[in-house]
Protein backbone atom coordinates (compact mmCIF):
# COMPACT_ATOMS: atom_id res chain seq x y z
CA UNK A 1 0.00 0.00 0.00
CA UNK A 2 2.79 2.34 0.99
CA UNK A 3 4.60 1.53 -2.26
CA UNK A 4 1.42 2.20 -4.21
CA UNK A 5 1.23 5.68 -2.64
CA UNK A 6 4.87 6.35 -3.39
CA UNK A 7 4.30 5.32 -7.03
CA UNK A 8 1.31 7.63 -7.22
CA UNK A 9 3.36 10.49 -5.79
CA UNK A 10 6.09 9.88 -8.35
CA UNK A 11 3.52 9.90 -11.14
CA UNK A 12 2.08 13.24 -10.01
CA UNK A 13 5.60 14.67 -9.66
CA UNK A 14 6.36 13.58 -13.23
CA UNK A 15 3.23 15.35 -14.52
CA UNK A 16 4.17 18.53 -12.62
CA UNK A 17 7.68 18.19 -14.06
CA UNK A 18 6.31 18.11 -17.61
CA UNK A 19 4.18 21.20 -16.91
CA UNK A 20 7.18 23.02 -15.36
CA UNK A 21 9.40 22.17 -18.34
CA UNK A 22 6.73 23.49 -20.66
CA UNK A 23 6.46 26.79 -18.79
CA UNK A 24 10.24 27.11 -18.45
CA UNK A 25 10.78 26.70 -22.17
CA UNK A 26 7.95 29.11 -22.89
CA UNK A 27 9.67 31.61 -20.60
CA UNK A 28 13.22 31.21 -21.89
CA UNK A 29 12.81 29.94 -25.45
CA UNK A 30 13.02 32.36 -28.41
CA UNK A 31 9.69 33.83 -29.51
CA UNK A 32 10.04 32.53 -33.09
CA UNK A 33 11.50 29.19 -32.09
CA UNK A 34 14.82 28.15 -33.48
CA UNK A 35 15.43 27.10 -37.06
CA UNK A 36 18.27 25.47 -38.91
CA UNK A 37 17.91 26.95 -42.41
CA UNK A 38 14.25 26.38 -43.28
CA UNK A 39 13.64 23.65 -40.73
CA UNK A 40 12.31 24.71 -37.35
CA UNK A 41 13.83 22.41 -34.70
CA UNK A 42 12.46 24.18 -31.63
CA UNK A 43 8.85 25.39 -31.53
CA UNK A 44 7.68 28.98 -31.27
CA UNK A 45 6.83 30.10 -27.79
CA UNK A 46 4.02 32.51 -28.63
CA UNK A 47 0.76 32.19 -26.71
CA UNK A 48 -0.77 30.92 -29.93
CA UNK A 49 1.68 28.04 -30.35
CA UNK A 50 2.24 27.27 -26.68
CA UNK A 51 -0.57 28.41 -24.43
CA UNK A 52 0.18 28.52 -20.71
CA UNK A 53 -0.64 25.37 -18.80
CA UNK A 54 -3.20 27.24 -16.72
CA UNK A 55 -4.87 28.54 -19.85
CA UNK A 56 -5.35 24.98 -21.10
CA UNK A 57 -6.76 23.93 -17.75
CA UNK A 58 -8.86 27.09 -17.52
CA UNK A 59 -10.41 26.34 -20.90
CA UNK A 60 -11.75 22.99 -19.68
CA UNK A 61 -14.80 24.20 -17.65
CA UNK A 62 -15.86 26.60 -20.42
CA UNK A 63 -18.49 25.48 -22.93
CA UNK A 64 -17.41 23.46 -25.95
CA UNK A 65 -18.74 25.99 -28.48
CA UNK A 66 -20.44 29.35 -28.45
CA UNK A 67 -23.77 27.69 -29.24
CA UNK A 68 -26.34 27.87 -26.45
CA UNK A 69 -26.62 24.69 -24.33
CA UNK A 70 -23.12 23.46 -25.27
CA UNK A 71 -21.56 21.10 -22.71
CA UNK A 72 -18.36 22.14 -20.96
CA UNK A 73 -15.20 21.19 -22.82
CA UNK A 74 -14.04 18.73 -20.17
CA UNK A 75 -17.29 16.78 -20.41
CA UNK A 76 -16.88 16.45 -24.17
CA UNK A 77 -13.26 15.36 -23.77
CA UNK A 78 -14.18 12.80 -21.11
CA UNK A 79 -16.95 11.40 -23.31
CA UNK A 80 -14.57 11.04 -26.21
CA UNK A 81 -11.94 9.48 -23.93
CA UNK A 82 -14.49 6.99 -22.61
CA UNK A 83 -15.38 5.97 -26.13
CA UNK A 84 -11.73 5.53 -27.07
CA UNK A 85 -11.07 3.68 -23.82
CA UNK A 86 -13.68 1.07 -24.67
CA UNK A 87 -12.25 0.61 -28.16
CA UNK A 88 -8.68 0.46 -26.82
CA UNK A 89 -9.63 -2.19 -24.26
CA UNK A 90 -11.32 -4.32 -26.91
CA UNK A 91 -8.24 -4.04 -29.10
CA UNK A 92 -6.01 -4.85 -26.15
CA UNK A 93 -7.93 -8.02 -25.35
CA UNK A 94 -7.92 -8.98 -29.01
CA UNK A 95 -4.19 -8.30 -29.32
CA UNK A 96 -3.31 -10.22 -26.15
CA UNK A 97 -5.38 -13.26 -27.17
CA UNK A 98 -4.06 -13.31 -30.72
CA UNK A 99 -0.48 -12.68 -29.56
CA UNK A 100 -0.71 -15.51 -27.07
CA UNK A 101 -2.11 -17.91 -29.66
CA UNK A 102 0.79 -17.03 -31.95
CA UNK A 103 3.28 -17.61 -29.13
CA UNK A 104 1.81 -20.98 -28.17
CA UNK A 105 1.75 -22.07 -31.81
CA UNK A 106 5.34 -20.99 -32.31
CA UNK A 107 6.43 -22.77 -29.12
CA UNK A 108 4.62 -25.97 -30.14
CA UNK A 109 5.97 -26.22 -33.66
CA UNK A 110 9.51 -25.12 -34.44
CA UNK A 111 8.49 -24.95 -38.11
CA UNK A 112 5.77 -22.43 -37.29
CA UNK A 113 8.27 -20.36 -35.34
CA UNK A 114 10.72 -20.36 -38.24
CA UNK A 115 7.96 -19.39 -40.67
CA UNK A 116 5.87 -17.00 -38.61
CA UNK A 117 8.29 -15.11 -36.36
CA UNK A 118 9.95 -13.19 -39.21
CA UNK A 119 6.50 -12.31 -40.55
CA UNK A 120 5.41 -11.09 -37.12
CA UNK A 121 8.44 -8.83 -36.94
CA UNK A 122 7.93 -7.71 -40.52
CA UNK A 123 4.26 -6.95 -39.83
CA UNK A 124 5.28 -4.10 -37.56
CA UNK A 125 7.08 -2.31 -40.35
CA UNK A 126 3.83 -1.85 -42.29
CA UNK A 127 2.61 1.62 -41.32
CA UNK A 128 -0.75 1.75 -39.62
CA UNK A 129 -1.89 4.50 -41.97
CA UNK A 130 -1.47 2.13 -44.91
CA UNK A 131 -3.44 -0.54 -43.15
CA UNK A 132 -6.41 1.56 -42.12
CA UNK A 133 -8.22 1.88 -45.47
CA UNK A 134 -7.69 -1.82 -46.17
CA UNK A 135 -9.25 -2.96 -42.91
CA UNK A 136 -12.05 -0.45 -43.24
CA UNK A 137 -12.74 -1.72 -46.75
CA UNK A 138 -12.78 -5.40 -45.73
CA UNK A 139 -14.87 -4.67 -42.66
CA UNK A 140 -17.45 -2.82 -44.72
CA UNK A 141 -18.09 -6.00 -46.68
CA UNK A 142 -18.62 -8.20 -43.61
CA UNK A 143 -22.24 -8.89 -42.92
CA UNK A 144 -23.21 -12.17 -41.32
CA UNK A 145 -26.87 -12.65 -40.46
CA UNK A 146 -27.89 -9.87 -38.10
CA UNK A 147 -24.30 -8.89 -37.48
CA UNK A 148 -23.11 -5.82 -39.26
CA UNK A 149 -19.55 -4.53 -39.14
CA UNK A 150 -19.24 -1.30 -37.18
CA UNK A 151 -16.74 1.46 -37.73
CA UNK A 152 -15.23 1.07 -34.27
CA UNK A 153 -14.49 -2.58 -35.01
CA UNK A 154 -12.13 -1.54 -37.78
CA UNK A 155 -10.36 0.73 -35.31
CA UNK A 156 -10.13 -2.07 -32.74
CA UNK A 157 -8.70 -4.48 -35.32
CA UNK A 158 -6.11 -1.96 -36.50
CA UNK A 159 -5.07 -1.12 -32.93
CA UNK A 160 -4.85 -4.79 -31.99
CA UNK A 161 -2.42 -5.15 -34.88
CA UNK A 162 -0.04 -2.98 -32.84
CA UNK A 163 -0.95 -4.61 -29.53
CA UNK A 164 -0.41 -8.25 -30.45
CA UNK A 165 3.25 -7.85 -31.36
CA UNK A 166 4.88 -7.44 -27.92
CA UNK A 167 2.66 -10.21 -26.56
CA UNK A 168 3.60 -12.66 -29.31
CA UNK A 169 7.32 -12.01 -28.86
CA UNK A 170 7.29 -11.74 -25.05
CA UNK A 171 5.08 -14.77 -24.47
CA UNK A 172 7.18 -16.86 -26.86
CA UNK A 173 10.31 -16.00 -24.90
CA UNK A 174 8.50 -16.78 -21.66
CA UNK A 175 7.16 -20.11 -22.88
CA UNK A 176 10.66 -21.06 -23.98
CA UNK A 177 12.24 -19.88 -20.73
CA UNK A 178 12.14 -23.03 -18.54
CA UNK A 179 15.54 -24.58 -17.88
CA UNK A 180 16.43 -27.98 -19.25
CA UNK A 181 16.33 -29.36 -15.71
CA UNK A 182 12.63 -28.48 -15.42
CA UNK A 183 11.84 -29.66 -18.93
CA UNK A 184 13.57 -32.98 -18.28
CA UNK A 185 11.76 -33.31 -14.99
CA UNK A 186 8.42 -33.02 -16.78
CA UNK A 187 9.61 -35.50 -19.38
CA UNK A 188 10.71 -37.91 -16.64
CA UNK A 189 7.17 -37.70 -15.23
CA UNK A 190 5.84 -38.68 -18.64
CA UNK A 191 4.03 -35.34 -18.93
CA UNK A 192 2.84 -34.56 -22.44
CA UNK A 193 2.96 -31.24 -24.25
CA UNK A 194 -0.29 -30.01 -22.75
CA UNK A 195 0.54 -30.74 -19.10
CA UNK A 196 4.02 -29.31 -19.61
CA UNK A 197 2.40 -26.16 -21.01
CA UNK A 198 -0.03 -25.80 -18.13
CA UNK A 199 2.25 -26.80 -15.25
CA UNK A 200 5.56 -25.43 -16.44
CA UNK A 201 5.60 -23.17 -19.47
CA UNK A 202 2.63 -20.92 -18.70
CA UNK A 203 3.66 -20.22 -15.08
CA UNK A 204 7.25 -19.66 -16.18
CA UNK A 205 6.12 -17.21 -18.85
CA UNK A 206 4.37 -14.82 -16.44
CA UNK A 207 7.42 -12.60 -15.74
CA UNK A 208 7.81 -12.16 -19.50
CA UNK A 209 4.13 -11.76 -20.30
CA UNK A 210 3.36 -9.04 -17.75
CA UNK A 211 5.69 -6.42 -19.28
CA UNK A 212 4.52 -7.53 -22.71
CA UNK A 213 0.85 -6.91 -21.96
CA UNK A 214 1.76 -3.52 -20.46
CA UNK A 215 3.47 -2.61 -23.73
CA UNK A 216 0.43 -3.96 -25.54
CA UNK A 217 -1.74 -1.59 -23.49
CA UNK A 218 0.30 1.41 -24.57
CA UNK A 219 0.25 0.20 -28.17
CA UNK A 220 -3.52 -0.29 -28.03
CA UNK A 221 -4.02 3.34 -26.95
CA UNK A 222 -1.69 4.76 -29.59
CA UNK A 223 -3.16 2.42 -32.21
CA UNK A 224 -6.74 3.39 -31.32
CA UNK A 225 -6.08 7.12 -31.58
CA UNK A 226 -4.11 6.84 -34.82
CA UNK A 227 -6.70 4.49 -36.31
CA UNK A 228 -9.53 6.84 -35.32
CA UNK A 229 -7.73 9.62 -37.16
CA UNK A 230 -6.96 7.56 -40.25
CA UNK A 231 -10.37 5.89 -40.59
CA UNK A 232 -12.16 9.11 -39.63
CA UNK A 233 -14.23 7.41 -36.94
CA UNK A 234 -16.22 10.02 -35.01
CA UNK A 235 -16.75 9.91 -31.26
CA UNK A 236 -13.23 9.27 -30.00
CA UNK A 237 -10.23 11.30 -28.91
CA UNK A 238 -8.46 10.79 -32.23
CA UNK A 239 -11.15 12.49 -34.26
CA UNK A 240 -11.44 15.24 -31.63
CA UNK A 241 -7.73 16.03 -31.97
CA UNK A 242 -8.24 16.38 -35.70
CA UNK A 243 -11.33 18.61 -35.38
CA UNK A 244 -9.98 20.88 -32.66
CA UNK A 245 -6.77 21.51 -34.61
CA UNK A 246 -8.86 23.95 -36.68
CA UNK A 247 -9.23 26.21 -33.64
CA UNK A 248 -5.47 26.66 -33.25
CA UNK A 249 -5.68 30.39 -33.98
CA UNK A 250 -9.13 31.34 -32.72
CA UNK A 251 -9.13 29.33 -29.49
CA UNK A 252 -5.50 28.21 -28.91
CA UNK A 253 -6.10 26.36 -25.63
CA UNK A 254 -8.84 24.16 -27.10
CA UNK A 255 -6.73 21.78 -29.28
CA UNK A 256 -4.73 20.80 -26.19
CA UNK A 257 -7.76 19.46 -24.35
CA UNK A 258 -8.11 16.20 -26.31
CA UNK A 259 -4.36 15.67 -25.83
CA UNK A 260 -4.94 15.78 -22.08
CA UNK A 261 -7.70 13.23 -22.72
CA UNK A 262 -5.24 11.00 -24.57
CA UNK A 263 -2.76 11.20 -21.69
CA UNK A 264 -5.54 10.30 -19.26
CA UNK A 265 -6.51 7.40 -21.50
CA UNK A 266 -2.96 6.08 -21.52
CA UNK A 267 -2.70 6.31 -17.73
CA UNK A 268 -6.04 4.57 -17.25
CA UNK A 269 -5.17 1.69 -19.54
CA UNK A 270 -1.73 1.31 -17.92
CA UNK A 271 -3.41 1.20 -14.52
CA UNK A 272 -6.02 -1.34 -15.58
CA UNK A 273 -3.40 -3.57 -17.20
CA UNK A 274 -1.14 -3.50 -14.15
CA UNK A 275 -4.09 -4.83 -12.12
CA UNK A 276 -3.68 -8.08 -14.06
CA UNK A 277 -0.31 -8.62 -12.37
CA UNK A 278 -1.67 -8.35 -8.83
CA UNK A 279 -2.97 -11.90 -8.36
CA UNK A 280 0.08 -13.36 -10.13
CA UNK A 281 2.67 -12.41 -7.51
CA UNK A 282 3.79 -15.96 -6.82
CA UNK A 283 4.76 -16.48 -10.44
CA UNK A 284 7.17 -13.58 -10.24
CA UNK A 285 9.28 -15.05 -7.44
CA UNK A 286 12.96 -15.02 -8.19
CA UNK A 287 14.10 -18.18 -9.88
CA UNK A 288 15.84 -20.36 -7.30
CA UNK A 289 19.44 -21.18 -8.11
CA UNK A 290 20.22 -24.16 -5.93
Amino acid sequence: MRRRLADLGLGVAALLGVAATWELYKLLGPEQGWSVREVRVLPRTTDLAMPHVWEMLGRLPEPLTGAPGAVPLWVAVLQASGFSLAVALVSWVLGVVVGFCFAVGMQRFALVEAAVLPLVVLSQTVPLIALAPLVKGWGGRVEIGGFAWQGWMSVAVIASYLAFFPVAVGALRGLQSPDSIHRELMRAYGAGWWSTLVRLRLPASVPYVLPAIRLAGANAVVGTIVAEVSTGLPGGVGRMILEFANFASSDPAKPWAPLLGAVLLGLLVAGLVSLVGLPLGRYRRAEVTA
Partner: protein
Amino acid sequence: MSAATAAQDHPRGAVAVSVEDVSRVFGGSGGAVTALDQVDLTVAAGEFVSLIGPSGCGKSTLLRLVADLDRPTSGSISVFGRTPEQARLAHDYGIAFQQAGLLPWRTVRANVELPLALHGVGKGGRRERAGHLLDLVGLADFGDHFPDQLSGGMQQRVAIARAIAEEPSLLLMDEPFGALDEMTRERLQVELVRLCAQTRAAVVFVTHSIPEAVFLSDRVVVMSARPGRIQEVVDIGLGRGTEREEGLREDTSYFESVTRVREALHGGSGAGATVRGAELR
Protein backbone atom coordinates in the same frame (compact mmCIF):
# COMPACT_ATOMS: atom_id res chain seq x y z
CA MET B 1 0.62 -47.71 -7.75
CA SER B 2 1.45 -47.95 -4.06
CA ALA B 3 4.77 -48.85 -2.52
CA ALA B 4 3.68 -52.17 -1.20
CA THR B 5 2.52 -53.49 -4.54
CA ALA B 6 5.56 -52.05 -6.30
CA ALA B 7 7.87 -53.91 -3.99
CA GLN B 8 5.86 -57.09 -4.28
CA ASP B 9 5.83 -56.86 -8.06
CA HIS B 10 9.57 -57.08 -8.02
CA PRO B 11 10.69 -59.57 -5.38
CA ARG B 12 14.36 -59.75 -4.49
CA GLY B 13 16.31 -61.36 -7.25
CA ALA B 14 14.22 -59.63 -9.93
CA VAL B 15 16.07 -57.26 -12.22
CA ALA B 16 15.41 -53.53 -11.91
CA VAL B 17 17.77 -52.24 -14.57
CA SER B 18 19.56 -54.20 -17.23
CA VAL B 19 22.09 -52.45 -19.44
CA GLU B 20 23.51 -54.57 -22.23
CA ASP B 21 26.41 -53.61 -24.43
CA VAL B 22 25.35 -49.98 -24.47
CA SER B 23 27.37 -47.31 -26.26
CA ARG B 24 26.58 -43.63 -26.58
CA VAL B 25 28.49 -41.54 -29.08
CA PHE B 26 27.92 -37.80 -29.25
CA GLY B 27 28.63 -36.42 -32.68
CA GLY B 28 29.88 -32.87 -32.40
CA SER B 29 31.50 -30.45 -34.80
CA GLY B 30 34.87 -31.19 -33.20
CA GLY B 31 34.56 -34.93 -33.90
CA ALA B 32 32.67 -37.71 -32.16
CA VAL B 33 32.89 -38.21 -28.41
CA THR B 34 32.38 -41.72 -27.10
CA ALA B 35 30.71 -41.06 -23.76
CA LEU B 36 29.94 -44.74 -23.11
CA ASP B 37 31.60 -47.72 -24.72
CA GLN B 38 29.99 -51.16 -24.50
CA VAL B 39 28.75 -50.89 -20.95
CA ASP B 40 27.06 -53.84 -19.21
CA LEU B 41 25.35 -53.43 -15.87
CA THR B 42 22.58 -55.16 -13.97
CA VAL B 43 20.86 -53.66 -10.94
CA ALA B 44 18.68 -56.01 -8.91
CA ALA B 45 15.37 -54.88 -7.44
CA GLY B 46 15.97 -53.21 -4.09
CA GLU B 47 19.69 -52.91 -4.71
CA PHE B 48 21.66 -49.70 -4.11
CA VAL B 49 24.30 -49.17 -6.80
CA SER B 50 26.62 -46.16 -7.00
CA LEU B 51 28.44 -44.98 -10.10
CA ILE B 52 31.78 -43.31 -9.44
CA GLY B 53 34.58 -42.22 -11.71
CA PRO B 54 36.47 -39.24 -13.07
CA SER B 55 34.61 -36.30 -14.54
CA GLY B 56 33.39 -36.97 -18.06
CA CYS B 57 33.40 -40.77 -17.78
CA GLY B 58 29.72 -40.97 -18.69
CA LYS B 59 27.98 -41.41 -15.33
CA SER B 60 25.30 -38.85 -16.05
CA THR B 61 24.97 -40.13 -19.59
CA LEU B 62 24.32 -43.66 -18.32
CA LEU B 63 21.71 -42.41 -15.85
CA ARG B 64 19.98 -40.34 -18.53
CA LEU B 65 19.83 -43.36 -20.83
CA VAL B 66 18.12 -45.40 -18.11
CA ALA B 67 15.69 -42.51 -17.50
CA ASP B 68 14.91 -42.26 -21.24
CA LEU B 69 16.09 -38.66 -21.31
CA ASP B 70 18.52 -39.76 -24.02
CA ARG B 71 18.82 -42.76 -26.38
CA PRO B 72 21.79 -45.13 -26.70
CA THR B 73 23.71 -45.24 -29.98
CA SER B 74 23.81 -49.03 -29.73
CA GLY B 75 22.94 -51.74 -27.22
CA SER B 76 19.80 -52.17 -25.21
CA ILE B 77 18.44 -51.13 -21.84
CA SER B 78 15.49 -52.51 -19.96
CA VAL B 79 13.84 -51.28 -16.78
CA PHE B 80 11.76 -53.90 -15.00
CA GLY B 81 11.64 -55.82 -18.26
CA ARG B 82 10.32 -52.87 -20.26
CA THR B 83 11.95 -50.34 -22.53
CA PRO B 84 13.09 -47.17 -20.76
CA GLU B 85 10.34 -45.25 -22.58
CA GLN B 86 7.62 -47.59 -21.37
CA ALA B 87 9.09 -47.43 -17.88
CA ARG B 88 9.13 -43.63 -17.98
CA LEU B 89 5.54 -43.42 -19.16
CA ALA B 90 4.53 -45.97 -16.51
CA HIS B 91 6.19 -43.81 -13.83
CA ASP B 92 8.46 -46.66 -12.81
CA TYR B 93 11.22 -44.41 -11.54
CA GLY B 94 11.74 -41.28 -9.49
CA ILE B 95 14.57 -38.93 -10.34
CA ALA B 96 16.68 -36.28 -8.61
CA PHE B 97 19.46 -34.18 -10.03
CA GLN B 98 22.38 -32.23 -8.62
CA GLN B 99 20.17 -29.14 -8.60
CA ALA B 100 16.93 -29.38 -6.68
CA GLY B 101 15.00 -28.02 -9.67
CA LEU B 102 11.95 -26.99 -7.64
CA LEU B 103 9.33 -24.88 -9.36
CA PRO B 104 9.72 -21.45 -7.72
CA TRP B 105 6.01 -20.55 -7.94
CA ARG B 106 4.89 -23.68 -6.11
CA THR B 107 5.00 -24.06 -2.36
CA VAL B 108 7.15 -26.82 -0.94
CA ARG B 109 4.06 -28.98 -0.53
CA ALA B 110 2.86 -28.30 -4.07
CA ASN B 111 6.31 -29.17 -5.40
CA VAL B 112 6.19 -32.53 -3.67
CA GLU B 113 2.66 -33.04 -4.96
CA LEU B 114 3.65 -32.26 -8.57
CA PRO B 115 4.31 -35.83 -9.78
CA LEU B 116 1.17 -37.01 -8.00
CA ALA B 117 -0.92 -34.26 -9.58
CA LEU B 118 0.49 -35.08 -13.02
CA HIS B 119 -0.50 -38.68 -12.56
CA GLY B 120 -4.03 -37.97 -11.50
CA VAL B 121 -3.89 -38.58 -7.76
CA GLY B 122 -6.86 -36.88 -6.08
CA LYS B 123 -6.49 -33.81 -3.91
CA GLY B 124 -7.00 -35.58 -0.59
CA GLY B 125 -4.57 -38.33 -1.47
CA ARG B 126 -1.96 -35.81 -2.55
CA ARG B 127 -2.24 -33.80 0.66
CA GLU B 128 -1.89 -36.83 2.83
CA ARG B 129 1.05 -38.22 0.90
CA ALA B 130 2.87 -34.88 0.78
CA GLY B 131 2.39 -34.41 4.50
CA HIS B 132 3.86 -37.83 5.15
CA LEU B 133 6.82 -37.20 2.83
CA LEU B 134 7.61 -33.81 4.36
CA ASP B 135 7.60 -35.47 7.77
CA LEU B 136 10.01 -38.03 6.42
CA VAL B 137 12.54 -35.47 5.23
CA GLY B 138 12.05 -33.31 8.32
CA LEU B 139 10.32 -30.39 6.64
CA ALA B 140 6.83 -30.77 8.07
CA ASP B 141 6.82 -27.12 9.19
CA PHE B 142 7.84 -25.79 5.80
CA GLY B 143 5.02 -27.06 3.61
CA ASP B 144 3.69 -23.59 2.88
CA HIS B 145 7.04 -21.96 2.27
CA PHE B 146 8.32 -21.19 -1.21
CA PRO B 147 11.58 -22.72 -2.45
CA ASP B 148 13.46 -19.41 -2.33
CA GLN B 149 12.77 -19.29 1.41
CA LEU B 150 14.70 -22.53 2.00
CA SER B 151 18.41 -23.27 2.25
CA GLY B 152 20.09 -25.35 -0.43
CA GLY B 153 20.06 -28.44 1.75
CA MET B 154 16.37 -28.04 2.52
CA GLN B 155 15.59 -27.61 -1.18
CA GLN B 156 17.49 -30.77 -1.92
CA ARG B 157 15.47 -32.62 0.69
CA VAL B 158 12.28 -31.39 -0.96
CA ALA B 159 13.62 -32.68 -4.28
CA ILE B 160 14.24 -36.07 -2.69
CA ALA B 161 10.76 -36.13 -1.19
CA ARG B 162 9.43 -35.33 -4.66
CA ALA B 163 11.51 -38.12 -6.21
CA ILE B 164 10.07 -40.72 -3.84
CA ALA B 165 6.55 -39.26 -3.84
CA GLU B 166 5.12 -42.10 -5.89
CA GLU B 167 7.15 -44.70 -4.04
CA PRO B 168 8.90 -45.73 -7.24
CA SER B 169 10.61 -49.08 -7.30
CA LEU B 170 13.61 -47.41 -8.94
CA LEU B 171 15.33 -44.18 -7.91
CA LEU B 172 17.77 -42.44 -10.22
CA MET B 173 19.95 -39.82 -8.56
CA ASP B 174 22.67 -37.74 -10.17
CA GLU B 175 24.91 -36.23 -7.48
CA PRO B 176 21.90 -35.14 -5.43
CA PHE B 177 24.13 -34.09 -2.52
CA GLY B 178 26.85 -32.57 -4.67
CA ALA B 179 26.15 -28.98 -3.71
CA LEU B 180 25.75 -29.56 0.03
CA ASP B 181 28.08 -29.12 2.97
CA GLU B 182 29.58 -32.20 4.56
CA MET B 183 27.34 -32.22 7.63
CA THR B 184 24.06 -31.89 5.76
CA ARG B 185 25.34 -34.40 3.32
CA GLU B 186 26.05 -37.07 5.92
CA ARG B 187 22.68 -36.55 7.55
CA LEU B 188 20.89 -36.87 4.22
CA GLN B 189 22.88 -40.01 3.43
CA VAL B 190 21.55 -41.64 6.59
CA GLU B 191 18.04 -40.48 5.71
CA LEU B 192 18.34 -41.83 2.19
CA VAL B 193 19.53 -45.25 3.34
CA ARG B 194 16.61 -45.40 5.77
CA LEU B 195 14.10 -44.30 3.12
CA CYS B 196 15.33 -46.86 0.62
CA ALA B 197 15.19 -49.62 3.20
CA GLN B 198 11.59 -48.61 3.95
CA THR B 199 10.41 -48.42 0.35
CA ARG B 200 12.71 -51.21 -0.87
CA ALA B 201 13.51 -49.22 -3.98
CA ALA B 202 16.45 -49.97 -6.22
CA VAL B 203 18.77 -46.97 -6.54
CA VAL B 204 21.27 -45.89 -9.15
CA PHE B 205 23.28 -43.14 -7.50
CA VAL B 206 25.94 -41.01 -9.21
CA THR B 207 28.56 -39.47 -6.94
CA HIS B 208 32.08 -38.09 -6.87
CA SER B 209 32.69 -39.04 -3.28
CA ILE B 210 34.17 -42.41 -2.39
CA PRO B 211 33.01 -42.35 1.27
CA GLU B 212 29.50 -41.47 0.14
CA ALA B 213 29.42 -44.30 -2.39
CA VAL B 214 30.68 -46.80 0.19
CA PHE B 215 28.34 -45.66 2.93
CA LEU B 216 25.25 -45.89 0.74
CA SER B 217 25.80 -48.78 -1.62
CA ASP B 218 25.54 -52.50 -1.94
CA ARG B 219 27.81 -52.27 -4.95
CA VAL B 220 30.03 -49.47 -6.27
CA VAL B 221 30.58 -49.34 -10.02
CA VAL B 222 33.92 -47.74 -10.80
CA MET B 223 34.12 -46.19 -14.27
CA SER B 224 37.00 -44.88 -16.35
CA ALA B 225 36.99 -42.10 -18.91
CA ARG B 226 37.67 -41.72 -22.60
CA PRO B 227 35.99 -43.87 -23.61
CA GLY B 228 33.57 -44.31 -20.70
CA ARG B 229 33.77 -47.88 -19.49
CA ILE B 230 33.04 -49.89 -16.38
CA GLN B 231 36.39 -50.65 -14.86
CA GLU B 232 35.47 -52.61 -11.80
CA VAL B 233 32.49 -53.41 -9.65
CA VAL B 234 33.24 -53.40 -5.90
CA ASP B 235 30.91 -55.35 -3.60
CA ILE B 236 30.50 -53.49 -0.33
CA GLY B 237 28.37 -55.83 1.79
CA LEU B 238 28.02 -53.61 4.86
CA GLY B 239 24.40 -54.59 5.39
CA ARG B 240 21.19 -52.75 4.62
CA GLY B 241 18.94 -50.15 6.10
CA THR B 242 19.09 -49.84 9.86
CA GLU B 243 22.46 -51.55 9.91
CA ARG B 244 23.89 -48.43 8.32
CA GLU B 245 24.03 -45.75 10.95
CA GLU B 246 26.44 -42.92 11.65
CA GLY B 247 28.66 -45.36 13.59
CA LEU B 248 29.41 -47.23 10.40
CA ARG B 249 31.62 -44.37 9.29
CA GLU B 250 34.13 -45.32 11.99
CA ASP B 251 34.00 -49.04 11.35
CA THR B 252 37.08 -50.85 9.98
CA SER B 253 35.05 -52.73 7.37
CA TYR B 254 33.93 -49.33 6.08
CA PHE B 255 37.51 -48.12 5.77
CA GLU B 256 38.50 -51.33 4.02
CA SER B 257 35.76 -50.77 1.44
CA VAL B 258 36.83 -47.15 0.96
CA THR B 259 40.36 -48.37 0.29
CA ARG B 260 39.15 -50.96 -2.20
CA VAL B 261 37.13 -48.42 -4.17
CA ARG B 262 40.02 -45.97 -4.08
CA GLU B 263 42.40 -48.59 -5.42
CA ALA B 264 39.95 -49.52 -8.15
CA LEU B 265 39.77 -45.86 -9.17
CA HIS B 266 43.54 -45.47 -9.14
CA GLY B 267 44.00 -48.64 -11.10
CA GLY B 268 42.12 -47.10 -13.99
CA SER B 269 44.37 -44.10 -14.47
CA GLY B 270 47.71 -45.79 -13.89
CA ALA B 271 49.19 -46.66 -10.50
CA GLY B 272 49.55 -43.71 -8.19
CA ALA B 273 48.11 -41.16 -10.62
CA THR B 274 45.51 -38.82 -9.24
CA VAL B 275 42.02 -39.47 -10.37
CA ARG B 276 40.63 -36.52 -12.21
CA GLY B 277 37.45 -35.15 -10.78
CA ALA B 278 37.04 -37.72 -8.01
CA GLU B 279 37.31 -36.55 -4.45
CA LEU B 280 39.57 -38.80 -2.47
CA ARG B 281 38.42 -37.74 0.96
